[in-house]
């Protein structure tokens, strides 16, 4: 069972400073990772067109200082001896042996897509039958704020590439309800909204193919299957549906079906003439197939003891397994969990503060890529709130102890991007209260307490850098031993991949569907009371004070 929390083999990491004419970042790389692969996780990517074989010669980078591996055969074939002598290398062949400095004269054009590290996929018990006519397959996790996709050779199980990018539908509304509202404006808007998501998918696939394989059109023609998971609203919108069904209360707990409005038009637009496009149907009105994919990949419903799973994101989904039934619901986690809506909110991108500490009276901030501070992503924001509470700058009510400084509370003096405002804390309180109350309510309905839980799964990108003690301190997560908490950043995509690659997965998927009890928290008065109780910045309240 994949799990980000499993202890990783100890690797020596080297620090590299990489600059272009417009940016400078710092990355940590292991000796086994190429500079190109490490930079692919950042916004400063090298040009690439061969998948890292060293055959295209596009990923030129100059070594300014430091110790690296000797030039490879591919580099000696592609680069002149004089170039090599002057420090020019191919980033896909370059591996650090110590700290160093690099200069990237011609970075890849700016792109919204980034690679991300995925857990190695365990070999399935049953392999896909050989001789598939169109062997490539695409898995897509359509999130409210992010789209994740991965391309595979289904026959060999070879992973071609994975990408994460912003769902461009964000421009139509940050959360699902606003976007659904936008979807009702006009037929033209609706068409624009669904086309926007479809074009984003093919854009991401092209990014994978152009950089990781070096050819596009012939491979698109060999994609035989596309699997899409997502929350109900995103599935409705990409299918061109009007989403009206999602407004009907009676559909909240009903099975809904969303299918491409015109599959052949999708295939034409995607240049994938042979693709069988499978939209994995949501469980109910506001519980999507992304949660089912989480449950599939974590194997939660096969556990002998109770477990809880929280997929923290713009649309947060919660599941509680009691051994017989899996109780599921979704709540508006709100864009706060993905860095949207806060004054200085960012997704996990270069310059985002992802960790905050305090030592010897000084705030210590860590930013992604070690870039200059540009704002907070959710994990950094939660750290900041927990520490502001501990230091008594902030009160459990969510108000600052002292009157609000006009420029907010700055963690770095004179750095406006390091400021947190009262309104940001209010937004976070709502998101965490909705999530905490949902956990408490579902546990209560399942007849369980936090002490009964064998495992708490945290799915979604937020979990990756989340400080568990801080998350428990502010009441986002229930208080429990940290060794019972497991993180899985890209769980929905990993589940979707199983559907693509493992012939047994669909039967398990359907079994999980049958085990599910969907709860509409909107109609439960106790949930409202728990929401109010959990607005305070304090450990998670399982019941109302009386």
């Amino acid at each position: 069972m994949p799990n980000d929390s499993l202890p990783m083999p100890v690797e020596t990491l080297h620090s590299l400073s990489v600059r272009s004419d417009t940016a400078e970042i710092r990355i940590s790389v292991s000796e086994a990772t190429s500079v190109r692969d490490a930079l692919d996780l950042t916004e400063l990517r090298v040009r690439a067109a061969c998948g890292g074989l060293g055959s295209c010669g596009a990923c030129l980078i100059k070594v300014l200082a430091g110790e690296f591996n000797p030039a490879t055969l591919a580099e000696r074939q592609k680069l002149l001896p004089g170039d090599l002598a002057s420090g020019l290398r191919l980033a896909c062949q370059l591996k650090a042996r110590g700290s160093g400095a690099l200069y990237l004269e011609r970075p890849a054009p700016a792109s919204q897509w980034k690679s991300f590290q995925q857990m190695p996929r365990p070999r399935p018990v049953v392999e896909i039958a050989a001789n598939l006519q169109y062997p490539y397959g695409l898995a897509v996790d359509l999130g409210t704020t992010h789209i994740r996709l991965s391309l595979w050779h289904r026959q060999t199980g070879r992973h071609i590439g994975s990408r994460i990018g912003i769902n461009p539908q964000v421009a139509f509304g940050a959360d699902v309800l606003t976007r659904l509202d936008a979807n009702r404006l006009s037929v033209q808007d609706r068409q624009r909204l669904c086309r926007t998501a479809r074009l984003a998918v093919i854009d991401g696939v092209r990014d994978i193919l152009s950089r990781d394989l070096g050819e596009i059109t012939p491979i698109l023609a060999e994609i035989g299957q596309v699997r899409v998971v997502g929350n109900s609203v995103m599935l409705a919108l990409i299918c061109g549906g009007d989403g009206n069904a999602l407004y009907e209360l009676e559909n909240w707990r009903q099975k809904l079906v969303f299918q491409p409005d015109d599959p052949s038009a999708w295939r034409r637009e995607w240049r994938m003439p042979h693709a069988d496009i499978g939209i994995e149907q949501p469980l109910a009105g506001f519980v999507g197939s992304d949660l089912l994919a989480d449950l599939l990949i974590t194997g939660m419903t096969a556990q002998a003891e109770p477990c809880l799973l929280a997929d923290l994101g713009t649309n947060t989904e919660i599941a509680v397994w009691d051994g017989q039934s899996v109780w599921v619901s979704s709540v508006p986690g709100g864009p706060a969990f993905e860095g949207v809506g806060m004054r200085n909110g960012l997704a996990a991108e270069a310059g985002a503060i992802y960790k905050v500490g305090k030592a010897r009276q000084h705030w210590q901030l860590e930013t992604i890529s070690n870039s200059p501070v540009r704002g907070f992503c959710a994990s950094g924001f939660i750290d900041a709130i927990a520490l502001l509470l501990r230091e008594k700058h902030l009160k459990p009510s969510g108000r600052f102890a002292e009157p609000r400084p006009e420029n907010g509370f700055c963690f770095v003096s004179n750095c406006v991007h390091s400021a947190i405002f009262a309104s940001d804390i209010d937004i976070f309180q709502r998101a965490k209260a909705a999530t905490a109350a949902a956990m408490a309510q579902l546990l209560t309905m399942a007849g369980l307490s936090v002490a009964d839980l064998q495992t708490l799964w945290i799915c979604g990108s937020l979990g990756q850098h989340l400080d568990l003690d801080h998350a428990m301190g502010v009441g986002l997560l229930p208080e429990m031993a940290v060794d019972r908490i497991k993180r899985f950043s890209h769980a929905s995509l990993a589940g979707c991949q199983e559907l693509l690659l493992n012939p047994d997965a669909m039967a398990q998927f359907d079994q999980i569907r049958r085990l599910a009890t969907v709860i509409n928290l909107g109609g439960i008065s106790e949930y409202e009371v728990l929401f109010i109780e959990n607005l305070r910045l304090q450990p998670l309240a399982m019941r109302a004070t009386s």
Partner: protein
Amino acid sequence: MTLTNYIQAYNEAVFETDKPAALAVVNQALRDGLSPEDVVFKLVIPAVESMMERIEKDQDSNLAQHFMTAQIAADVTEKMLEKFSSPPEIIGKVVIGAASGDLHSLGKRIVSGCLKSLMVKVIDLGINVGAEQFVEAAVANDAQVIAISAMMVHTATGENGSIKVRALLKQRGLEDRIKLAVGGAPYRFDPALFRKVGADAWAPDGVTAAKVIVRLINEAKT
């Protein structure tokens, strides 16, 4: 402890969203001989009114404070009402609900909580309430105000929402007897929207909505 001390301690607890502390003040006051009527009329109602003032002026007031003001007030009032020596005088009645197609229930919860503590009888019709249902309930209960919460633009401006309630009130000659109040996110973005949907008044948040509704009750009664 004097009454002033109780008021101060209770107000502070409500402001800090500290429900256990607020309940502790109430329990101490009861133990010290305050009557349930005194707790409601001298402690809870002035505290709600004071929070209305503070929230209206304070840009930093947050949702937790709005909810806790209402929740604590409603909880304490409910408990005290059971102990009243005679039923209190109700100042008016309001029919409240989320507009047709709108599933958001929390906003109106703040309004209802404050109203209950202000001795307004609240008839809560829930979520996704049709225009006819609002008017029928208001007539049946002899309510002075219909209060409609709408958190999305299309439910605020929808044909089966406030616009239709206004049309029905007009058609049935009820406009003098029943006033219409609205609230919710779309009204904050367009402060003139309440007029476009035919409402008599709106409020930017749940706590001040209670204040606005009490004013409308008094208008309808005169």
